[in-house]
């Protein structure tokens, strides 16, 4: 047991270094996906027929293909047409592209669940259509989408681990390298798993607080 601790302790700095990459990929991808997700959702609900088709096509395409394939297209496919990303940036872009489609679906469902009377009430006090969407529909859609959105960001936190496949030294990548050097695969992956668990628990707690803050305000 003490061996085990010594091994974990000795490799903790490397794993935590990897964790920083994990969090970087996650935060950038989530924020990018958040912005793009809203654009796609609004385009899909309120857009002209062309924007609606484009948004729908994007969402179906991304949801219908594996994240890993998307990541290799970004990292190894795009350079053929002159777009070259570092592994880290490629992972951010690929996971961002991926989560945007899922987030868009949750935001769209949220927009659809806002009661029509809310829109009528906004118009009735003289707000323009755009103002009504911006001040009433989208804030309410966000609150409705929050539980599913929380799920999505937690899932993507774990999915950042696919970045090791394009040699990003994030948490999973570090664990794999240490395992290859020491042959203590079981021990190192267990430590890595525990770090993921701590991250996910912390994020879950944070999101719970946010959800509770909004509970009355749907």
């Amino acid at each position: 047991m003490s061996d085990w601790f010594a091994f974990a302790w000795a490799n903790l700095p490397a794993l935590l270094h990897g964790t920083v990459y994990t969090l970087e990929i996650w935060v950038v991808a989530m924020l990018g996906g958040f912005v793009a997700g809203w654009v796609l959702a609004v385009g899909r609900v309120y857009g002209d027929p062309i924007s609606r088709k484009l948004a729908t096509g994007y969402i179906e395409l991304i949801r219908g293909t594996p994240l890993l394939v998307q990541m290799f297209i970004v990292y190894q496919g795009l350079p053929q047409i002159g777009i070259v990303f570092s592994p880290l940036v490629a992972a951010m872009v690929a996971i961002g592209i991926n989560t945007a489609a899922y987030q868009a679906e949750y935001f769209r469902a949220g927009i659809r669940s806002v009661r029509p009377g809310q829109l009528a009430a906004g118009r009735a006090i003289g707000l323009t259509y755009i103002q009504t969407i911006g001040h009433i529909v989208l804030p309410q859609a966000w609150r409705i989408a929050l539980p599913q959105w929380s799920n999505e960001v937690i899932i993507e936190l774990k999915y950042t681990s696919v970045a090791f496949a394009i040699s990003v030294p994030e948490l999973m990548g570090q664990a794999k390298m240490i395992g290859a050097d020491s042959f203590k695969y079981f021990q190192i992956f267990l430590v890595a798993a525990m770090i993921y668990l701590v991250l996910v628990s912390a994020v879950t707690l944070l999101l719970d607080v946010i959800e509770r803050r909004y509970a009355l305000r749907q």
Partner: protein
Amino acid sequence: MTGSATQLMRVSHLTKRFGEHTVLDDVSLDVTAGEVKGIIGPSGAGKSTLIRCLNGLEPIDAGEIWLDDTELTARKADMDALRSRIGFVFQDFNLFTHLTVADNLMLGLRRVRGLKRAEAETIARRELDRVGLAEKWRAYPAELSGGQQQRVSIARALAMQPELMLFDEPTSALDPESVGSVLRVMRELVAEGMTMIIVSHEMAFIEAVADDVLFMAEGRVVEEGSARQIFHEAREQRTRGFIDGIAAALVGEADDPGQAR
């Protein structure tokens, strides 16, 4: 404003269809400043559709609607500006659920009227006080009873200082105990000379406050006249049938709506 005969709203030959279904058929009415107009009629008569048309929440198929000297139905009408001059109270309140009572009242003042926060707050507090809910300033709609929500929604409409208030069955979604508090607020508005169009099944209330009553059925105005005429001396058989039917339904109810409300 009471007593002046200024014409505030004029509706002529309004027709509205939903697909093949003609929901409003050649409806005309005039509202003078300070007038209280009651609209009664069976469910499905087109009452809600009519007053939704009056502030442009529903597009119309034919006819004209004028507010003062502006035509709502003109192609280039600035509908948003026109709507902000007309208050609308919904059957199911439709308070903005994600905003506090304060922000419900201030949203239009700030975004439509462009007032600064302090100015908006002064007006909003005054209107909330007027409906007797000053202490609910920071509450969310979900924390209020139905009657309180409806009073806030009246305050929200009043905050825009409308020239005309439209009410679509404002007490139909309320439990009996809350009805009185909403009708009391409306009575005060009547006393202040507010111009109002009220769709309601509260016959005693309509009879007490309305200067003029429209009876509608199947998208048409069957009969229009003073409250006394419609409720006691109706010319049309359909009107009498409707009034008698409602009266019969009320017999045996414990509380006298005329008294309690």
